[in-house]
């Protein structure tokens, strides 16, 4: 009997070993190396000079250029998150309140954007807002403007692209929360004299906070980590922090600087995740994904 018990105890670790090896070798150990790298220097010939130095960190933390772009990145991610929450909440509420086949259909539609490539969804806005896009052709056909207006390549279109990309995450997470709330609670509050709006703000909204929080976390972290959207929909002045990482690593081949930059991004976004985890727990995220 003892050997069976032993086997039972070993079994989960045997099953887990490939996954844990992968996470360890391909994520954890590399992250430690990024830390080491960030204290090394780039040698004159473009290679790595393995001497200890604070130079990269002094540059990342001291240079106004990096700080401004970091603040700009946080600002764009915050605006995106707020817009997603305001736009997504009523839609999630609607889905949670419709019944039967319609709800299933709306949920299936909500899943579809996840399967349409991010780059296609991003570039699709060029067809809409570009100089020869849908809006300009419409304005010209109606005689409102004679020459097309350049609406693309600014901060607003970056936010627009990010909202388009992240809105389904927000709606889905809020929906998961709303779906778990007994609808009769709102009716009860109403019958006890609360207005519809009061019943919503006093009962439903607080109960749906976990979903709203999970959606906001995803929107913020994914939005702040992007570098494709600013390249496609932003102008030359709309670079975000991840663009700096990409330029340092791929264009300038300055890996130690790139390592320091990516760790700075990890620390900022990691802090948000840790704070979220303290208040809400990461389990809520799994609900929206599963």
């Amino acid at each position, binding site marked *: 009997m003892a050997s069976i018990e032993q086997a039972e105890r070993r079994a989960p670790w045997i*099953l887990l070993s490939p*996954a844990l090896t992968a996470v360890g070798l*391909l*994520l954890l150990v590399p992250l430690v190396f*990024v830390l080491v790298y960030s204290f090394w220097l780039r040698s004159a010939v473009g290679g790595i000079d393995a001497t200890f130095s604070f130079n990269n960190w002094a540059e990342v933390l001291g240079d106004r250029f990096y700080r401004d772009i970091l603040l700009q990145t946080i600002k764009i991610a915050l605006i995106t998150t707020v817009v997603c929450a305001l736009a997504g909440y009523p*839609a999630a509420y609607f889905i949670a309140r419709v019944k039967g086949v319609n709800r299933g259909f709306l949920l299936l539609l909500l899943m579809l954007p996840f*399967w*349409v490539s991010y780059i296609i969804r991003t570039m699709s806005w060029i067809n809409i807002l570009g100089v020869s896009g849908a809006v300009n052709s419409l304005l010209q056909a109606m005689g409102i403007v004679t020459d097309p207006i350049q609406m693309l390549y600014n901060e607003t279109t970056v936010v627009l692209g990010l909202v388009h990309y992240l809105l389904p995450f927000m709606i889905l997470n809020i929906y998961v929360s709303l779906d778990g709330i007994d609808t009769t609670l709102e009716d009860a509050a109403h019958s006890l004299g609360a207005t519809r709006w009061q019943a919503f703000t006093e009962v439903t909204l607080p109960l749906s906070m976990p979903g709203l929080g999970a959606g906001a976390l995803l929107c913020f972290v994914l939005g*702040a980590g992007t570098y494709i959207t600013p390249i496609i929909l932003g102008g030359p002045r709309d670079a975000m922090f991840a663009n700096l990482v990409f330029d340092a690593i791929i264009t300038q081949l300055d890996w130690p600087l790139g390592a320091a930059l*990516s760790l700075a991004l990890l620390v900022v976004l990691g802090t948000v995740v840790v704070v979220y985890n303290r208040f809400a727990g990461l389990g809520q995220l799994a609900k929206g994904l599963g």
Partner: protein
Amino acid sequence: MRKPTGFTWITLWTIFVYLFMFLPIGVVVLLSFNASQFGSFPMTGFSLQWFGELATNDAIIRAFQTSALLGILTAIISTTIGVLASLAMVRYDFPGKTTISTLLIAPILVPEVVLAVALLLFLQLMNVPKSFPLLLMGHVIFTLPFVVLVVQARLIGVRRDYEEAAMSLGASPIQTFFRVTLPLIMPAVMAGALFAFTISFDDITGTLFWKPGGVETVPTQIFAMLRNSISPEINALGTVMIVLTVGLPLLGLAVMRQVSARQGAQAGAPA
């Protein structure tokens, strides 16, 4: 009871939100059939010529082959590892389970750019050059959490009695796994594999860091083509991608429904 008028506004807003999500994608598909020389409005007529151009464009064909191979290998490896881990998480209790659970989803908690940099720098230090294997390792590590989450969610619904019955009748654990457990969890496995394939097929963030020069996947190919200007060819390529990444999962879903309905009917029939 009459619905409050507030609900009418919510309905209208929801319609607007769905239009916002789908109209731009619809325009990509619409413009890919445009006969005009430029990838833009006005529509001058219906034409399939841009799809024809795609089929004769070697770079695009190669990108499709790379993406397909990468997606399939990622799906196989990630699903195998992920299913084993999910079995451990759902079927066993052991010390440190919460930590392990966080570790398994860690690759999506770390921003993809940071993950991309970390893996690239580490493997370069180990003298692994930018290459297809590096791409594959990268795709496996960031699809793994999604597979684990999807498979775990489905596994919870699979009953353990059948496995215990098989074991008590003398089947070895390995036999039990292949004869009983695996067929039972097949829908979860397929869902995980499909998910991994789609994520890998769509990925651009990590791929741009890891891909060797000259190798393109479909998304990086589109990205490179966008550097010039938007062309009808890009819209056509987008349409093909949409058909593949939306059509395949929908087909998979339909097939799975059919299969599980039939299995359900069989299981329900008296032996």
